[in-house]
C-alpha cells in the first residue's frame, strides 16, 4: 500500500436500490479506509473488462435481474469471472452469491470456476472483518506474484523464500502448477487444421500437439495463488500454521506465540505471497532451528520432549507443554483434525478428510473426536482402523 487505496470493482445486477445486498457489501468493504469499492453493472460487452483499472473484482453469480431499462445480460457471474481471468490474470476474483439454494452450485464452482474465493453475501456482511482480511491478502498476494519477473521454478522458490532443498523438493511434488511455455507461433494458432489429416481441430488440441517437451516451464499468477492457498498453506507438510508448529515442538500454542519463541523462529516464518491472512512457518527451517536449540541445550529425547527443556536451558524461559486432548499427557505432537487440539500419536488415528498431496503430512483424528464429535466421519479413517473405531465407541456405551 503506497497511499493508494485498494480499488475493488463489484459487479452486481442489483445496484440501483440503496437497500440491496450489493450496496450493503460495498458499505462494509469501504468501512476500512484502505478500500475503495465501486459498484458496476454487468457489462454488455466483455471488451470493456480490459479497461477496468482495479486491484480486485467481486462478481455476483446471478446477474439475471433486468436493469432500469429492462435489459439484462445473458451470462452468469462465473462466465464473466472466466473472461476477466483471461484478460486480467493478475487480479483476484471473488464470486458472491446470495441464495442458499445455490449451495450445491457453489461446491461445483469452487472446484471448477476461475474465481479465487466464493462468499455468500450474507456471510460477507456478517463476517466483514474476516472478508476484508482475505480480500487484502489476495490483493497483496497477487501483486507480489505479478511483480515477479522470473517465472521459473527457481524464481518462484526465491519469491516464496524456500531455502531448504527438502522444502523445494516437497513444493515441487505438491502439485506445483508449472506449465510448459508455448512458443510464439503456438500462441497465434487459435484454430487450425491438422497438418497430417487436414481436419479442423479445436485450439486446445492444437496447443497440445505443438507443445514441445523441451519448452521451458513457467508459472502463472492465478494458478500459483490458488496452489499456495489451497495446498501449500492449507495442509501441514511444507509449512505449519501456529497450532501445528506448536504441537510439533511439544509446546502449547500460547507458548509458541510468546515473544521469545516467535523471535527464535522469526527466520523460519513464511513471508512469501499470501502470507498476510494467517502466519505460517517453513517446516524444515522450523525443525532445524528447534534441533539447534536441542543440541545447544544438550537435552535428550524426541523433539517434542527435548525442545521445551532445551529452550528453557538456553533461553531461560519455561514453556507450557502441549497437552494431549485425550489424556492430558505432555508433549502431544500431532493435531486432531476435527478438534484442532494437540494429540499424541498413540491417542489418534490416521484420517483422510481431504485430497491433500501425498507429500503433505497425514491428518490425524483424536480418540476424543471419534468418541464425542458429530463432525467425525468414520468413513474417513483407514479401512483397517474401522474395527478399532467400533471398539472405542463400544467402550463408551
Amino acid at each position, binding site marked *: 500500500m503506497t497511499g493508494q487505496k485498494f480499488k475493488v470493482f463489484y459487479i452486481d445486477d442489483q445496484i440501483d436500490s440503496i437497500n440491496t445486498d450489493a450496496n450493503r457489501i460495498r458499505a462494509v468493504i469501504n468501512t476500512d479506509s484502505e478500500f475503495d469499492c465501486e459498484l458496476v453493472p454487468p457489462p454488455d460487452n466483455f471488451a470493456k473488462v480490459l479497461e477496468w483499472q482495479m486491484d480486485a473484482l467481486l462478481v455476483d453469480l446471478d446477474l439475471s435481474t433486468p436493469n432500469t431499462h429492462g435489459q439484462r445480460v445473458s451470462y452468469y457471474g462465473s462466465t464473466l469471472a472466466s473472461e476477466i481471468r483471461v484478460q486480467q490474470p493478475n487480479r483476484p476474483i471473488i464470486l458472491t452469491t446470495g441464495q442458499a439454494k445455490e449451495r450445491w452450485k457453489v461446491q461445483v464452482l469452487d472446484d471448477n470456476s476461475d474465481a479465487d474465493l466464493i462468499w455468500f453475501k450474507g456471510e460477507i456482511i456478517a463476517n466483514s472483518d474476516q472478508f476484508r482480511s482475505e480480500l487484502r491478502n489476495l490483493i497483496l498476494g497477487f501483486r507480489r506474484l505479478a511483480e515477479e519477473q522470473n517465472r521459473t521454478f527457481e524464481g518462484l522458490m526465491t519469491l516464496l523464500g524456500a531455502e531448504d532443498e527438502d522444502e523445494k523438493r516437497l513444493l515441487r511434488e505438491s502439485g506445483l502448477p508449472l506449465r510448459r511455455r508455448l512458443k510464439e507461433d503456438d500462441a497465434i494458432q487459435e484454430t487450425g487444421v491438422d497438418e497430417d489429416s487436414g481436419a479442423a481441430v479445436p485450439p486446445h488440441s492444437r496447443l497440445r500437439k505443438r507443445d514441445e517437451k523441451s519448452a521451458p516451464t513457467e508459472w502463472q499468477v492465478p494458478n500459483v495463488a490458488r496452489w499456495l492457498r489451497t495446498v501449500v498453506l492449507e495442509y501441514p507438510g511444507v509449512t505449519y500454521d501456529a497450532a501445528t508448529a506448536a504441537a510439533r515442538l511439544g509446546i502449547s500454542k500460547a507458548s509458541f506465540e510468546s515473544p521469545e519463541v516467535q523471535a527464535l523462529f522469526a527466520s523460519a516464518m513464511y513471508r512469501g505471497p499470501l502470507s498476510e491472512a494467517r502466519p505460517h512457518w517453513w517446516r524444515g527451517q522450523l525443525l532445524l532451528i528447534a534441533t539447534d536449540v536441542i543440541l545447544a541445550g544438550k537435552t535428550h529425547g524426541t523433539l517434542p520432549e527435548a525442545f521445551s527443556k532445551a529452550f528453557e536451558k538456553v533461553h531461560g524461559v519455561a514453556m507450557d507443554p502441549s497437552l494431549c486432548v485425550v489424556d492430558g499427557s505432555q508433549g502431544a505432537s500431532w493435531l486432531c483434525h476435527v478438534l484442532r487440539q494437540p494429540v499424541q500419536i498413540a491417542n489418534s488415528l490416521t484420517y483422510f478428510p481431504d485430497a491433500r498431496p*501425498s507429500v503433505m503430512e497425514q491428518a490425524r483424528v483424536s480418540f476424543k473426536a471419534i468418541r464425542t464429535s458429530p463432525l467425525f466421519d468414520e468413513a474417513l479413517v483407514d479401512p483397517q482402523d474401522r474395527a478399532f473405531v467400533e471398539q472405542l*465407541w463400544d467402550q*463408551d456405551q
Partner: protein
Amino acid sequence: MTDDHDFNEPEKVSFTIDSGLLFQLGEELVARSSLALAELVKNAYDADATEVTVSMLGIRKPGGRIIVRDNGNGMTLDELRSGWMRIATPGKRTQTYSRRFHRPLTGAKGVGRFAARRLGEKLRLRSVAEANNHKEGLEVTFDWTHDFPPGKELTTIPVLVTQKAVPASKPTGVVLRISDTRDVWTNQDLRVLLRDLMSLQSPFPDLVQELQTDLERSVRDEHPDRINNEAEYDPGFKFTLKVDGEPVVEQVTSEVTEVLLARAVAVLDGEVVEVDVSDETGGISKVARAAYKLTLTQSKGKPLTLLDEDVTYRGLIGARFRVYMFRYEPDKFRYEADAVTDNPISLRDAQRIGRENGGVRIYLNGFRVFPYGDQGDDWLELDQTAARNTNFGTVVDSGGFIQSKIEGAGSRAFLQLPRNNQVFGAVMISSRLHPVIGVNVSRERLIENDAFAQLKLLVQRGVYWMTLRYTAFTRQEQEIKRLEIKAMPLPDVVRDLADSIDKNPAISAEQRQMLVTELRSVARRAETELETHIGELSLLRILASAGTMLAIMSHQLQVLVSGVSHIREDLERLRQDLPSKHWPAIDELLRRVNNWQELVTQQTGFLNILLSPESRTRRRRLLFKDIVGKVHDVLRFYLEEYGVKFQNFVPDTLRTPPVFEAELYAVLLNLMSNALKAVHGHKDQRVGVLARRDERGFIFQVLDSGKGLPKERWEVVFDPLETDSIPNPLLGVGTGLGLKVVRDLVSQYGGTARFVDAPASWVTCVEVFIPINTPR
C-alpha cells in the same frame, strides 16, 4: 611441420607431482565431507577394528577437530611407508579381505588419506601395531597447508615420523586427529553423515544378512581357495558418533521390516548358478545362468521357478538378489486382528514407505553402494519404462524366452511392470567372487562396464518374469470373479453354491478355497444390492413421515421465507430514519427477525439431512445426543411458542447401532411430535429423551408429561390410522400413521417400538429398542 627440420638430441623428462594434487584428489574423489568421514570409518572396519568412535569438537564453525579412534590392527612404519604414504597403492587390490577377521575390504582405492586431507588442514596420525612380536607405536603429523603448498614437488616434502616401542598391554589401533577442520558442520550435515554411515547397513538387515550369508557359504563351498581358514571369529563392528563430547543418539529404525515385507504380493529370488550345458558336439560345458524363484503370496501353490537359458552371466556366479513386489491396494494392507498395538502399516503408510525407501539396492561385500535404490535412482529403468508405457520385454527379453514361458498374462501385461516405489530389494555381490565388478573412483557408483550391464539384466529379467507371472495369476483370479458375478443369484443361493463347492472333493483344495472365497464375496455384494432396495423402501416411509414435518415447516416458512430478509432490510432503513429513542424497539424487532431467519436455516438444514442421499444409503453409528439435539432445534420455535420444556438426557458419547440417519430422524420426529401434541394445553408441559445401551442393544425413550394413554391402547395405536392425538394448532391432526411408521422403521433393524410404564414424574413413555447387531 616439414621433414627437413633438424632435431636436437632427445632429452629425458619425467612426470612430477604437484603437492596440490593431494587437495585436489581429496576434493574431487570424495564429493561430500560426510562421505569423507564415512571413508575413514570404513578404513577402520577394513583394519579389523571392532569399535570406532568419531568425536567432532567445535565443528559448528571452521577450525574444529575431528578425532577418529579405532581399535583395529594399527599400522607399522613399513605399512605407513608403503601403503599410506604411497599414492595409488595397489594394496587393497591384491588383498581383498582383512587379515584378522577376514572381512571383505570396503575401501578399495586408498581414498581414506585424501578424505583426511579433505576434512581438515592438519592431521596427526597415531598408531599402535603388532610388529615382529612386539608392539610398535608411531606418530606422524601432516600440516597440509604449511608443508604441502600447491606448486611444491610432492615427493620432495619430508614427513617426520616418530617411532617408539610401546608396552605389550597397549591395545592396537589408530587415532586420526584432524584439526583446523575446513567445513562448517550443520545439523543437516550431521544428519547426512549419520545417514551415510547408517546406510552402510541395510534398511532390511535380515534380508541382507540372509543373502550375505548365502553368498559367504557359496564362497566357502565352491571357492575354498579364496577363504582364509585362519580367520578369527568376527565379533562385529560398533560405531559411535560424538558431537562436542555428547553421544548423538540417533533413532534410526528402518520401517522396511517384516511387517511390510509380509504384505508383498510377490517375492522374487534370483541367483547366478553354474549349470552343465551340452554343446553342439555333445560335450558338456559349464555356463553361468540365472535361476529365479517366485513366490506369489496370494497363491497357495508352490513357488515357481525358472532357469533362464537365454543369457549367460559371465563372472557373476554367486551373485544373488531378492525383490519384494507390492501392490498398494486396500485389501493388501489389512491390520491383523490384534494389530492396533502392533504398529501395523496402513495403506497410506506403505505408500509413503514405498516412495521413500522403494527400489533395489546393491550391496558389495555387505555394504551399500550408492545411489542404487535411492529415491530418484532408476538403475533398473523401471520408472522410465512404466512412465512411457513401453514394453519392458523388448528391452530385456528381445529373444522372447521369458515371454514364451508364460501363458495367460495377456499382451499388455508389461503395463503391470512395478515402479521403484513398488519394489524393495537387495542385490548382493562380492569383490572376491566378482572381481569383474568395480567401484567407481568417486565411491558412489559401480563402474558401468559389461559386468554391471549383466548384473542389471539379471535383475531386470527377473522382475520382468515376475511381472508376467503375477499378471497371469491375477487375470486368472479376475476371470473367476467375473464369471461368478455374471451369474449372480440371491445371496443365499450364492452361499449354498459356495457351500457345495467347499464340499466338492473333485476340485483341488487350492481352487476350492479360491472359489469359495470369491463366492462369499459375491454373496456380500448381493446383500449390498438388497440393502439398496431396502433403502428405497425406507424412502417411501420417510416421505410419509415428512408429512408431519412439512406441516410444521409450511406454517413457519410461509411466514418467514418470503419476507424475512426484506423485513430486516426495511427495519434497518427505518431505524436510520427514526429518532434514536425508537431504536431499542427496532433492535428488538431486528433480533426477532434474525431469530426467524436462523430458524428457517435450521429447518431447511434438517430437511436436507432427511432427504440427502447419504442419510438414506449409508448406515452409521450416530452420536444420539447430537441427533436428538438437531430434532430439538427443528422444534425449537414450537417449544418456545408454547412454553414446552425439552430435556435431552442422552449421554454425550452414546452411539446408536448402524442406522440410516434419515430413518432415525423420522422415528424421533414422529415420537417427539406425538409427545408435543400430548402435552399441548397441559399445565406441566415437558418432553424428554432418555437413552442407554445394554448387552442386548440400544434403547431410547421419548417421555412426556401429557395426558397419558390407557394401557389397553398401547398396542392398538401402532395400527395404521389409529390415533389418540388431539388436533394441534401447529402440528395438525394426527394421520394415524406416525407410530406405524416408527415401528416399521425400527423393525427393519430387528428392533421394537412400544409403550412402557413411564419413569417417575413422567406420564407417557415410548421405548425404542434396536439390537446391537442389526440385520443387514
